[in-house]
């Protein structure tokens, strides 16, 4: 069905089998029909049916019967046949859900002519709020990845040509287990229906055991909650409810699964302007420089060994300030106190207003337990508090015991068959585990890619992409979402994991799940019995309920909060158990998920591989980050990073050894090496294979990410490192401006008038004299504001722009050559202050894109007039006129123009071209390109306004891709000719400044100065 439900004109589709055109569509159809056919086409047939009409009606009804008797087809109709609901040229938006492990985030997917072309966040979904992450956006590219496996394969050389054959083989393998057990290994997920299906499968199959072993394991938070609070799982924190946040190696704005929501809630409480000006204070204590640390109002480097001691000191201080002697056993279990001075100061701030401590899940159970103990004292846990028991990730319990059981079974050689359901332990697991797995006689892979694990299996069954699969998800707040497919599986032999398990169940037991022929039926039936029956009486029929949820993408309901009971002695034991870092060696290696490729499952994705790391700006690699002091200690300091080469070090411990390029990163604690997971894939596809090194291989037996002791030696070679930014110093230039919340409150705006514009008095905002006539913007005049205070540098905008505007990826070699194509780049500068020296500088991220200058230097130098000024203030690029002199690029003071040095688009392998947005031209080589302010979206908004009989677009109707994706809502876009628009008001803010205002190019992007809350809260 096809309902225009929202003011944005998004069309939410429910299901194909019950399609009705909207009244508008009907009107259009009727109109075209009346033009197309003779006048009285619609006239009623003459009464009295003659023989010919009778025969006609008879055959038609026969045909209808044949069609109508079919079970409703739930698959998306391919565009070979014109589907009724698609209007060629007009996009439809469908809601679905994306799962990052067990964190479900609602999506709206734009579909053009039956193929998904753009992923956006669902604004009704609390994990998204309309925003998205880089990975969410980029998952579209994985859908069209040519490296996904097409067919079932590998059975002792024999071809398994069909899914059925392959499943038959699997079923036989399970049935011939002879009393030994069969293991199904799965990743984390948030789907109640899948969980139910798996448990039904376990009931139906004797000896089937299930273990959840995600690639990325971080049990610290769940274990700590289990010990101290009696709740085995993870909280989803509402940062808008905290006034003072102490983040201890927690990257909640960066690599956290819920970062999209976290960035939004964090930004909500950091609004230095307006009537309700308020800013929370972020104190970051961390060993690696993270995006969270970059936002910190105060940042302290800490060695991982000192974390528990530091948290113990904070706990002790908070208790003493609160005159409480609770958790004294935890304090003593935490061992020697570290950084007591900071601990005292931070404790004072934490108790002054609503304090909150967040500890990275990878930081281990001891640190997390101490953090939660402080939160208990700060009353940060509870209903309406930052850590609300009603807001937890589903199925986020600790996986320690499941893994122990699997190990025991492997050790006793009691496993006949093992099924890997889209997990990849041969890539991510400890070598002892993967060696034990290799002993299992029968190994079967259900996987999207021919992975490291799938390569070791006897049977391989291709799994469909999330956008091709039915499913559902439970959200962190208890609400539920339906995952609906946007396209039928591109590989016709693949099926969703749910479908595969269902089919397998039916092979094992004929009446498995009764008459439910597909996973779609399973999900639907589940919803009918589980949710509709209990909580959705508002809907008369289940169909109406189902339709509504599919349209909205979410069914809001409140589920019971988890119950908490504090157990101090368990907490103390947990603290005591985990204060030591495992492994042998002189250095501590910190392993966290990559900002770009995450746990590595999405690694075969050019967009993500080429997304510059938020901190290092490195693409296509993971490196070992160290402080200058550590590099000196290793004898590898003084390497010129601008030359894009780095010395390679061999990092080894008892678990394994990898070689990584050494990269000096200011702000990393001394003695620490920091790297990320997700790289070092060897068997997945041409994009990710042999990119970087596999950091999982150094992790301890538990497989948990975090800290390990390692020894480091110089490997004596150099490795090319592709960074997109080689200079990090502002050189005293006022490109990025900063102020403090204190100054804003005191109306001290001096900072922003410091830019000297020739011929203009101090404080004068008038424009310098110009020999050319001013543009007369009669209609709209587009402009953008970017709030540097909100931006955390997550990179969602970069990928959103890439997806929306068909921007090519160019590969590592071309990035080294300086030819990356991103229209939106995130410039990152370090700032040293008297308080924070070069070893712990502040960091500022500045999104940089075409400034759409009114006095654009690029426009007058183009000899063929390929770049021109539009009547609405856009700096337009006419690709087919461009001959590629590159003068515009040279003359752009912001260097935001991108030249197609090679035919990057021709190098794409099919079917990747289907990911392209049909509304945007694909550029050939020799042509310049750059940000267009998403001119195609502006046009669509205009058409909408015109259809609605309006001459102008209203504020908020035209949304650029970067603005839409931004989790921090840092970007405002609109028409400055409308004085009431958000963008027109925003640029009047005292924090507003123009980059390079002094050269009089008159940019249309106003940046709002970065504000830090530097005054301690007392």
């Amino acid at each position, binding site marked *: 069905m096809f309902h225009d439900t929202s003011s944005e004109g998004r069309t939410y589709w429910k299901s194909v089998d019950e399609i009705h055109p909207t009244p508008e569509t009907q009107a259009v159809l009727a109109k075209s029909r009346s033009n197309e056919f003779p006048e009285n086409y619609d006239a009623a047939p003459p009464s009295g049916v003659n023989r010919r009409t009778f025969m006609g009606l008879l055959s038609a009804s026969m045909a209808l019967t044949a069609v109508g008797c079919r079970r409703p087809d739930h698959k998306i109709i391919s565009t070979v046949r014109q589907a009724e609901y698609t209007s060629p040229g007009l996009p439809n938006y469908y809601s679905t859900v994306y799962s990052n492990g067990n964190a479900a985030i609602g999506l709206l997917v734009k579909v053009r002519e039956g193929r998904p072309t753009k992923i956006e966040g669902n604004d009704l979904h609390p994990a998204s709020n309309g925003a998205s992450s880089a990975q969410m956006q980029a998952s579209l590219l994985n859908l069209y990845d040519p490296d996904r496996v097409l067919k079932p394969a590998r059975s002792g050389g024999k071809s398994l040509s069909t899914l059925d054959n392959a499943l038959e083989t699997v079923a036989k393998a399970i049935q011939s287990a002879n009393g030994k057990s069969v293991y199904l290994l799965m990743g984390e997920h948030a789907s109640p229906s899948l969980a139910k299906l798996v448990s039904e499968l376990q009931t139906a199959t004797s000896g089937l055991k299930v273990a959840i072993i995600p690639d990325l394991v971080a049990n610290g938070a769940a274990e700590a909650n289990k010990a101290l609070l009696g709740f085995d799982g993870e909280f989803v924190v509402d940062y808008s409810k905290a006034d003072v946040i102490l983040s201890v190696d927690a990257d909640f704005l960066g690599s956290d699964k819920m970062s999209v929501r976290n960035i939004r809630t964090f930004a909500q409480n950091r609004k230095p302007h307006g009537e309700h000006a308020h800013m929370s204070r972020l104190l970051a204590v961390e060993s690696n420089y993270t995006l969270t640390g970059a936002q910190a109002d105060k940042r302290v480097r800490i060695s991982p060994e000192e974390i528990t001691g530091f948290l113990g000191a904070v706990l002790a201080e908070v208790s003493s300030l609160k005159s409480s002697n609770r958790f004294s056993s935890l304090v003593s279990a935490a061992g020697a106190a570290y950084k007591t001075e900071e601990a005292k100061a931070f404790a004072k701030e934490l108790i002054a207003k609503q304090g909150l401590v967040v500890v990275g899940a990878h930081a281990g159970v001891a640190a997390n337990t101490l953090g939660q103990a402080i939160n208990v004292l700060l009353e940060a846990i509870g209903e309406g508090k930052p850590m609300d028991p009603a807001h937890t990730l589903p199925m986020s319990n600790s996986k320690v015991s499941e893994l122990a059981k699997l190990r025991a079974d492997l050790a006793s050689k009691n496993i006949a068959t093992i099924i890997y359901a889209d997990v990849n332990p041969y890539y991510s697991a400890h070598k002892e585990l993967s060696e034990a797995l290799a002993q299992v006689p029968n190994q079967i892979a259900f996987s999207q890619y021919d992975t490291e694990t799938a390569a070791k299996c006897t049977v391989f069954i291709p799994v469909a992409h999330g956008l091709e699969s039915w499913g559902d998800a439970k959200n962190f707040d208890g609400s539920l979402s339906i995952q609906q497919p946007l396209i039928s599986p591109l590989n016709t032999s693949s099926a969703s994991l749910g479908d595969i398990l269902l089919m397998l169940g039916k092979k094992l037991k004929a009446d498995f799940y009764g008459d439910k022929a597909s996973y779609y039926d399973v999900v639907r039936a589940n919803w009918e019995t589980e949710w509709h029956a209990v909580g959705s009486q508002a809907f008369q029929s289940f169909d109406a309920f189902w339709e509504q949820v599919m349209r909205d993408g979410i069914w809001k309901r409140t589920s019971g909060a988890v119950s908490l009971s504090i157990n101090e002695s368990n907490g103390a034991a947990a603290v005591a158990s985990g204060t030591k870092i495992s492994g042998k060696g002189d250095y501590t290696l910190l392993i966290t998920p990559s900002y770009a490729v995450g746990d590595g499952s999405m690694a075969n994705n050019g967009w993500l591989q080429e997304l510059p790391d938020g901190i290092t700006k490195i693409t296509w690699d993971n490196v070992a980050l160290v402080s200058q002091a550590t590099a000196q200690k290793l004898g590898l300091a003084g390497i010129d990073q601008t030359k894009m080469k780095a010395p390679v070090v061999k990092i080894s411990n008892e678990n394994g050894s990898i070689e990584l390029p050494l990269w000096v990163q200011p702000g990393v604690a001394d003695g620490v090496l920091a790297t990320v997971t997700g790289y070092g894939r060897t068997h997945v596809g041409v994009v990710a294979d042999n990119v970087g090194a596999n950091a999982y291989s150094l992790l301890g037996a538990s497989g948990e990410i975090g800290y390990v002791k390692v020894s480091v030696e110089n490997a004596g070679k150099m490795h090319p490192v592709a960074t997109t930014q080689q200079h*990090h110093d502002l050189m005293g230039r006022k490109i990025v401006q900063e102020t403090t919340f204190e100054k804003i409150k005191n109306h001290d705006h001096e900072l922003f008038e410091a830019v000297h514009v020739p011929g203009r008095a101090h404080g004068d905002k008038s424009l310098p004299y110009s020999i050319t006539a001013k543009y007369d913007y009669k209609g709209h005049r587009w402009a953008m504001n970017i709030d540097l205070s909100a931006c955390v540098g997550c990179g969602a905008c970069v990928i959103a722009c890439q997806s929306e505007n068909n921007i090519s990826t160019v590969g590592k070699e071309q990035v080294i050559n300086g030819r990356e194509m991103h229209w939106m780049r995130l410039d990152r500068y370090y700032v040293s202050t008297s308080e924070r020296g070069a070893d712990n500088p502040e960091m500022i991220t500045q999104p940089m894109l075409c400034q759409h200058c009114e006095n654009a230097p690029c426009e007058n130098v183009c000899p063929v007039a390929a770049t021109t000024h539009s009547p609405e203030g856009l700096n337009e690029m006419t690709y087919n006129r461009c001959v590629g*002199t590159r003068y515009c690029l040279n003359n752009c003071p912001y260097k935001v123009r991108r030249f197609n040095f090679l035919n990057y688009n021709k190098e794409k392998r099919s079917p990747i071209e289907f990911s392209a947005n049909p509304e945007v031209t694909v550029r050939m080589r020799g042509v310049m390109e750059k940000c267009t302010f998403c001119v195609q979206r502006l046009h669509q908004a205009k058409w909408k306004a015109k259809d609605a009989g309006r001459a102008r677009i209203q504020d908020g109707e035209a949304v650029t891709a970067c603005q839409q994706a931004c989790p921090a809502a840092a970007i405002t876009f609109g028409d400055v000719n409308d004085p009431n628009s958000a963008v027109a008001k925003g640029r009047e803010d005292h924090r507003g400044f123009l980059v390079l205002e002094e050269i009089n190019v008159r940019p249309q992007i106003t940046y709002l100065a970065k504000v830090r809350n530097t005054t301690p809260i007392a």
Partner: protein
Amino acid sequence: METVEQTKVAGGRAHTAPKEVLREPLALGSPTLSDITNKIAGIVEQKPTAKFMMALAASAALAGWGVACIAYTIAVGIGVWGLNNPLGWGWDITNFVFWVGIGHAGTLISAVLYLFRQKWRTAINRAAEAMTIFAVICALLFPLIHTGRPWLAAYWLTPYPNQMQMWTNFRSPLEWDVFAVGTYFTVSLMFWFTGLVPDLATIRNRMKEGTISHKVYTFFSLGWTGSMRNWHHYEIAYMILAAVSTPLVLSVHSIVSFDFAVSVLPGWHTTIFPPYFVAGAIFSGFAMVLTLMIIAREVLDLHQFITLKHIDNMNKIILTTGMIVGYAYAMEFFIAWYGANPYERFVFINRATGDYAWSYWSMIFCNVISPQFFWSAKLRRNIPLTFILSIFVNIGMWFERFTIISTTLHHDFLPASWGYYSPTWVEISIFAGTFGLFLTLFLLFTKYVPIIAIAEVKGVLPGNQPTHHHDDHAHAH
């Protein structure tokens, strides 16, 4: 008059000149008119030597390699060069400006010195003009092949009427370049050819009738008979073309400098560029003329016509223009300091101390320091030193353009977008290929066209000028 002195010259005609203005002769050994014709036309008429053929083969091979690399670039894309995001230009535009600059000496010698009655120009003007044309051909390659889509740039850069009313952007300095360099090439070619007509006719007259070469020379000598009427028209045409060419000496390189000066970039956006570029162009042009003429003088045994006086004069010009260029370098730094623009100040400090400092100091050494030898009259007449320094000057002037382009682009306003550039083998090959092309054309020129203007040299021989004879009161003009 008491200071009049009688001079005997071959041919027996008397010539008188005031003693204090008596100058060094422009052709040594007192050649007769037929000596000159035989000597210079002989070069054209003799069979090509083995050395010549080897030199031609080598330069043609180099040119061919360059053409192959150009074809490769057009087929694959500019990505085969080393250019990148902050550096949209590199060796391509460096080479363009370098070759255009070299072309300047030709016009200066043939037009400006002609109008100023500098008779010493006659021995070198023909070769200098040829060099101009060949250098501009090499230069014109780059604006075309440096574009991303040269198959479109080839005609979209010219304003032509079309149904879409799509004109070129007349505000763009690149468009001005099209006109400036195009005009320069056309006028230079006409000027050169006009000067050639009498000499081509001389060769024609010496050829055996009926041969193909006779027909070709007949065609290009445009029916020249050597009549008074012919000479009369010729002199007027030559004078007009010289007058038309003269402003071009200033305009072409001024406009080329606008490619940089019109931009907003620190290090480019400066008003000193037009005079500084013109001086630099003359500087490099004279150096190139010297390089070529010293070789031709030795190889073709032209000591008689290209004398030390010529070399001395050219070295003086090199010294002068070198000083102008050096002054411009210093003034750029002064203004960068005086103007207090932090971006500009940074660019100049970076120019001398940054990633491309090696290029900057090579430029200073070659362009400012090396010509200082020419303060000495003795060294100005030292052929080996002149030859070496002329090559230094050309290297230095290439580095000047490279320094200007790379230092400004690689570190401009936003430090986040800074980069670095080095050329690939393709760019180096194309540059080498233009030398191959230049030398090929020049070698062919020495073989098929009199490399010294026969008629003009005859004109500067003592006694061949209209003279006022004081002992004979009849006016003998």
